[in-house]
């Protein structure tokens, strides 16, 4: 038993660091650069299109029509501009629901714990970045069914996040009625 305890003590006292036998950083750096470049190329393409769209929107005369659109810009949630939905044929009722959900989202986010709020916003941005990536890919290959399925997935996940936020706030409100 003493030997076993001695062995456990020796294990616990092992050095916390062992130098790698070679420098692993160049391999890591290369992987990071590849990732950065991939993302960067897509982002640049997406931002060029988004900027063009913005200029287009700014040059257009303001419309009195209140028909549903996707121009609502909440303070925390990244907006979804028209360019990003160009490959997704939403019907008007969906856009209306979507717009309402986004409009409510800021208030709902304010009711969440701070850390969770940051997580939600960060993940909405991730989804939006993915939507931009997929739209770019579809631009180059419009007939690609898999890419369109991935685009649907991205929108589904975005709505799932929004629904989760709404549900948590609703649940909390129901329980707080006892206060």
């Amino acid at each position, binding site marked *: 038993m003493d030997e076993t305890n001695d062995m456990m003590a020796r*294990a616990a006292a092992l050095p916390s660091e062992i130098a790698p036998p070679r420098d692993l950083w160049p391999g890591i750096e290369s992987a990071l650069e590849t990732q950065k470049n991939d993302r960067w190329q897509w982002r640049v393409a997406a931002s060029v299109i988004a900027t063009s769209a913005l200029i287009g929107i700014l040059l257009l005369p303001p419309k009195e029509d209140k028909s549903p659109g996707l121009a609502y810009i909440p303070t925390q949630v990244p907006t979804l501009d028209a360019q990003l939905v160009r490959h997704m044929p939403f019907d008007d009722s969906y856009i209306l629901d979507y717009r309402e959900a986004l409009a409510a989202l800021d208030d709902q986010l304010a009711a969440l714990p701070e850390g969770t709020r940051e997580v939600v916003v960060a993940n909405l941005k991730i989804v939006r970045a993915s939507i931009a990536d997929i739209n770019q890919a579809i631009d180059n290959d419009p007939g690609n069914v898999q890419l369109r399925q991935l685009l649907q997935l991205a929108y589904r996940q975005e709505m799932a996040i929004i629904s989760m936020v709404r549900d948590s706030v609703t649940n909390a409100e129901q329980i707080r009625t006892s206060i």
Partner: protein
Amino acid sequence: MLLTMSATQGNQRQPVTGETDTIARAAKGDTRAYEQLYRAYSGRVYALCLRMTANQQAAEDATQDAFIQAWRKLGSFRGDSAFSSWLHRIAVNVVLSDMRRSKREIAGLSEMPAAEAESGDSDAHLPDIEQAIAGLPARARHVFVLVGVYGYTHEQAAKTMDIAVGTCKAHLHRARQMLADQLDESYGRN
């Protein structure tokens, strides 16, 4: 199998001055800042990976993968725990995922009997507990490394490894017995 381990004595890790700032810069895409973090923590991560995999090449790969994954996830690092602990968890998960993914291939290396693990050492050589740990079967080794070396509780280790707490305890018991047997043999006692 003789593992080459050049241990860093004591705490020789170069502290990252202004670590929070360095992490923030890395999270924004500054690879120079991230290299500082790599230089500071690669020894710890590699030590963990080497002990978990018992294989130098696998440990190098896992160390690289851990830093690559950590880079991707830096945006979600909120500072609730120390950066080293956060990185440690990522590295453990990388190793366990790799092991699950290529179970057969890795098992060939890790299920090597203890005697073989010590081959290359002369009889007179004082047994290195690192070598003995490396000779344990994979699951027993993982539990022993997490609980015995890194101080996880059984609950934490079980959760990390996706096994029941009872299974974790059984693996540790087995590991301790096997290590005790190995050390006994090496000391010439029985």
